[in-house]
C-alpha cells in the first residue's frame, strides 16, 4: 500500500540505500572476520615470541660459552667466582624430581583411572572423579608449602638422613599433583573403548579383572601412554614445588635424599636475585629456558602424535 503512494525517485533512492547498506554490511562482515582471525593468530605469535626471546638471548650466551662445555661440564656455578656452565646438574635434578613424581603418579593415576572406568558405580564415580580433580586445581605454591612443611618432616621420621631440602619430598608431592592429570586422561582413553569389546570378553567367561587388564587396557594403551608423556612434560616444567622444597644446590646426583636444583628452580633463583640484566650470568636463564622448552616441546608433540593416531583407530 505504501509502495503505490511513493514516487519513482523515492523508490530508487531506497533501493540505492539498501544496496549501500548491504555493501557496508559486507565490509563489516569482512572486517569482523579479519579481527577474529587476528585473535586466533595470537597463539602463533606467542609461540614465535617464545622461540625468538629464548634464541635471541641464548645466542650471545653461546658465543661466550661453548656448546660442548654447556652440555658436558659436570658443574653449574654461574653465580660464583669460579664459573662453570655445565647444565648436566640441573638436568639431573629435573630428571630426579620428575622420576620420583612419575613413579608415584603413574601407578596411582592409572589404578584410579581403571577403578573409575571399570569398577565404580555411576553414583560413586560422580563423587570421586570431581573430588580427585580438585587436586589439579590447587595452586602449585600450596603444594610447595605442603612438601616443605608436611611431607619432609613426615619422611624424616622414616629416613633420618633426609636433608631439609630434598628431591624426594618435592618429587612425591609433585606426583600427587599429577595424579589427576594421568587419571582423567587415562580414564578418557579407557572409557572410549567400545563396550562390545568388554561384552565379547565377558561372553568368553573372563572375570572383570581380566576384562580390564587384558582387553580394555591394551585397547586404550596409546591414550594411556600419551597421558604418561604429558605428565612427564608437566613434571619437568613444574616450578614452585621444587623451588620451595627441593633446594638450590646444583649437584650431579641421583640420590633423592639430597638437596638438588632443577632447571626451573634455577630460573626462579636468578629472577629473585640481583643479577643485572644483559650480563652473561643473567643470560644463563634463557639458555636453561631454551633447554626446558625443547624438552617439553618434544614430549608434547610426541603425546599429540600418539593421541591423534589413536583417534583414527576408533573411527
Amino acid at each position, binding site marked *: 500500500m505504501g509502495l503505490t503512494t511513493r514516487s519513482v525517485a523515492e523508490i530508487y533512492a531506497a533501493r540505492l540505500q539498501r544496496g549501500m547498506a548491504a555493501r557496508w554490511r559486507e565490509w563489516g*562482515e569482512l572486517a569482523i*572476520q579479519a*579481527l*577474529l*582471525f587476528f*585473535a*586466533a593468530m*595470537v*597463539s602463533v605469535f*606467542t*609461540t614465535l615470541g617464545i622461540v625468538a*626471546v*629464548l634464541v*635471541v638471548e641464548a645466542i650471545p650466551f653461546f658465543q661466550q660459552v661453548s656448546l660442548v662445555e654447556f652440555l658436558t661440564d659436570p658443574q653449574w656455578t654461574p653465580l660464583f667466582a669460579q664459573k662453570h656452565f655445565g647444565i648436566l646438574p640441573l638436568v639431573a635434578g629435573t630428571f630426579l624430581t620428575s622420576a620420583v613424581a612419575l613413579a608415584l603418579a603413574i601407578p*596411582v593415576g592409572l*589404578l*584410579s583411572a*581403571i*577403578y573409575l572406568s571399570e*569398577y565404580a558405580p555411576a553414583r560413586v564415580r560422580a563423587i570421586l572423579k570431581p*573430588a*580427585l580433580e*580438585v*587436586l589439579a*586445581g*590447587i*595452586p*602449585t*605454591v*600450596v603444594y*610447595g*608449602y*605442603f612438601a*616443605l*612443611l*608436611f611431607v619432609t618432616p613426615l619422611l624424616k621420621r622414616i629416613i633420618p638422613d633426609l636433608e631439609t631440602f630434598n628431591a624426594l619430598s618435592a618429587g612425591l608431592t609433585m606426583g600427587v599433583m599429577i595424579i589427576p592429570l594421568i587419571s582423567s586422561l587415562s580414564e578418557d582413553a579407557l572409557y572410549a573403548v567400545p563396550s562390545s569389546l568388554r561384552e565379547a570378553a565377558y561372553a568368553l567367561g573372563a*572375570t*572383570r*579383572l*581380566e576384562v*580390564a587388564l587384558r582387553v580394555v587396557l591394551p585397547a586404550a594403551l596409546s591414550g594411556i601412554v600419551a597421558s604418561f608423556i*604429558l605428565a612427564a612434560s608437566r613434571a619437568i*616444567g*613444574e*616450578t614452585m614445588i621444587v*623451588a*620451595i622444597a627441593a633446594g638450590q644446590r646444583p649437584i650431579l646426583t641421583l640420590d633423592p635424599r639430597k638437596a638438588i636444583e632443577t632447571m626451573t628452580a634455577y*630460573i*626462579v633463583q636468578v629472577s*629473585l636475585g640481583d643479577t643485572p*640484566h644483559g650480563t652473561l650470568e643473567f643470560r644463563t*636463564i634463557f639458555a636453561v*629456558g631454551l633447554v*626446558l*622448552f625443547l624438552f*617439553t*616441546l618434544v*614430549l*608434547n608433540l610426541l603425546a*599429540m602424535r600418539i593421541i591423534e593416531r589413536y583417534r583414527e583407530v576408533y573411527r
Partner: protein
Amino acid sequence: MERRRRRELLGRIFEGIALAAILFGLLVLFLLLLDVARRGLGVLSWSFFTSYPSRFPEQAGIRSALLGTLWVMALTALFSVPLGVAAAIYLEEYAPRNRVTRLIELNINNLAGVPSIIYGLLGLELFVRGMRLERSILAGALTLSLLILPILITASREALRAVPMGLREAAFALGATRWQVIRHQVLPVAFPGILTGMILALSRAIGETAPLITIGALTFVAFDPKSPFDKFTVLPIQIFNWVSRPQAGFHARAAGAILVLLAVLLAMNSLAIYLRNRLQRRHQW
C-alpha cells in the same frame, strides 16, 4: 570351579587396590587441607587483611598481596577474555579446513603444555623490557593473559560447538549474515559455557607464581598499588616468600594466606558451577 573362584578372588583384591589408589589421592588432599587449616586458622583476623607485610610475623598481613591479586586478575580478564573468545569464534565459525587453521590449532595445543615459567621469560623480554612496562601490574596481567589463552580458547570452542547446528541454519535461512548469526543466536546460547570456561581459566591464573616471579614482581610491597603501572605482588608470591623463611610465625602466615587463596578459588569454582546450572536451564532442546 576352584580356578574360577581364585580368578574372582584376584579380581576382588585388585579392585581393593584400585580403590585404595584413588582414596590415596583424596587422603593427601584431606591432609593438605587439614595442615593448612591447623596452622593458618589462628592468624585469620581483620588485621591480617589490612596490614602490609612486615619483618615481624605477628604484624605481617596480606593487604598489598590481595590488592595486587585483584588488580592483576581484573586486567588479565580484560585482556584475555575478548581475545580468547574471538579466537574461539574464528576457529569454530569461520576457519576453513586448511593449513593455517591446522597450524593455529597445533600452536594452541602445544602452548597449553609450555611450562608457565617460560611465559615468564617471554613476559620479561616482551612486556617488561621490550614495551618498557617495567615490573608493573600491566606487564604481569599481559603475561598471565598469554598463559591462560589456550585454556580459554579450548573452553570457549567447546561451548560454541555445543550450540545446535539447526539454530545457525534457521538464522541463515532468514537471511542473517554470519556475524548476525553469531552475535544474536550462537553467542547468547554459548554464553554460560564461555563464562564457566572464563572463570576456570582465571582460577588457574590466580594461583600462578612462577611467571610473575620471573618478570620481577616484588616480594615485599608495603604500599597499595594504585594504577596498572605500579609495582606489585600477588598472594601466591607472598605465600612463597613466607614459606621460604625459617620462622614458624611466617609459616603460619603462609598457611593463613593459603586459606584466603583457597577460599577465593572455591568461591570462583562454585560460581562457575552455579552459573552453568542456572543459565543452561534457559535453553533446552
